[in-house]
């Protein structure tokens, strides 16, 4: 009888053993500062036990310290709507990280709005750098800050910096978007120097961006910026998008 009960107890507990072991492994990895490795273990535990304070706070901490705000948000709000019975030290640690991440993303959003307005690229880059410094674990903020630096460099007509950042981004993240930015920077260099090498390289990158733009959205974006780059290469006149739109596209619209 006792043996049967023991078998039933162990059978019932088997689904928790794996989750429990993952929790202890994850906890050890968090203690060792290996947050990236800890996260999958802790996520596994949270899937079985979304109401466990310990598992959720450890997973939230590991996620926030690896820049995965999306996972942190999912696990923390999956736990009684983000409420914790006993706000202990583990809770306060996560709260501080969560607050920092939120402030960083609020700044990033502000930067994004400024960048979209046009003509405020330097301010947008400054704000994005502040966001990246506030939450250094979010590598996407640092990447965005560098991309905004491209815009700021273009705005102050520092085309060498614009080209150097664009090439670095293209090497790090090869794709139609980054190739298009390199084409734009090379077109700027051609416009100010008249060096045919820049024009040739710009056209090559533009062709690469066209080939890579397979999705309808990518194609649409490519058509928009390719037209401006071709104009820059043909005229050696550098104007930004709002000015280009005002000069050419508004006429097109009114002609239609």
């Amino acid at each position, binding site marked *: 009888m006792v043996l049967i009960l023991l078998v039933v107890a162990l059978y019932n507990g088997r689904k928790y053993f794996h989750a*429990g072991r993952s929790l*202890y492994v994850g906890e050890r990895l968090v203690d060792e500062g290996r947050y990236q490795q800890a996260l999958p273990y802790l996520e596994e535990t949270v899937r079985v036990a979304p109401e466990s304070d310990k598992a959720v706070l450890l997973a939230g901490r590991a996620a926030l310290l690896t820049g995965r705000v999306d996972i942190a948000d999912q696990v923390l709000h999956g736990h009684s709507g983000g409420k914790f019975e006993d706000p202990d030290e583990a809770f306060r640690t996560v709260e501080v990280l969560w607050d920092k991440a939120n402030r960083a993303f609020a700044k990033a959003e502000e930067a994004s709005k400024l960048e979209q307005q046009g003509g405020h690229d330097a301010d947008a880059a400054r704000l994005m750098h502040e966001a990246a410094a506030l939450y250094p674990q979010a590598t996407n903020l640092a990447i965005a800050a560098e991309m905004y630096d491209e815009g700021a460099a273009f705005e102050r007509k520092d085309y060498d910096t614009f080209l150097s950042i664009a090439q670095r981004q293209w090497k790090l993240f090869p794709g139609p978007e980054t190739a298009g930015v390199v084409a734009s920077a090379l077109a700027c260099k051609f416009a100010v120097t008249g060096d045919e090498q820049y024009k040739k390289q710009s056209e090559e990158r533009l062709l690469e961006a066209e080939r890579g733009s397979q999705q309808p959205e990518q194609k649409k974006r490519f058509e928009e910026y390719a037209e401006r780059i071709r104009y820059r290469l043909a005229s050696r006149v550098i104007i930004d998008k709002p000015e280009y739109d005002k000069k050419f596209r508004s006429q097109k619209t009114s002609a239609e």
Partner: protein
Amino acid sequence: MFFIPGPVIAALTFPGVIIHEFGHLFFCKLFKLKVYDVCFFRFGNPAGYVVHETTDNFTRLWFVSMGPFFANTILCVLFCTAAFLPVWVLKVEDLLAYFFYWLGISIGMHAFPSPGDLSNLWAMAPERAKHGNLLAILSVPLIGLLYILNFGRIFWADLGYGIGVGILGPVAIFRALARA
């Protein structure tokens, strides 16, 4: 400190009494000692008993008297380990797990040998220890400790032991597994 009559405690944790008495019976049968009467559980004091033939063999007596202590402790650790994670760590609402945790604590709570078991052993242990019986030598401090713990029953030492084993045992097991 609040007082709850012994039979009530025994009734609330009856599986531990049954396992304890079964442990005595098992070792009596193993060492072929005659068993005159067995009561696995009753509403009275003692809540259970096994009346068996006496023996001069210290090893046999040791197993018959101390066997339930180790059996109850091991079973407490096993049942509580099976239920520890959902109850304490993962906070999962699993009624079966809570049932097994109660079972584990109940078994652990009745691990202590009774004063009768201890006095039988104490009657033999010091003399056997003088003659170099290793089991008797090791038993002397253990019997002393168990006497103290038995006295501590009025301060819930038996419940404390059950809860302690039922928590520390699984924690030790899972910590060891995490390191493996």
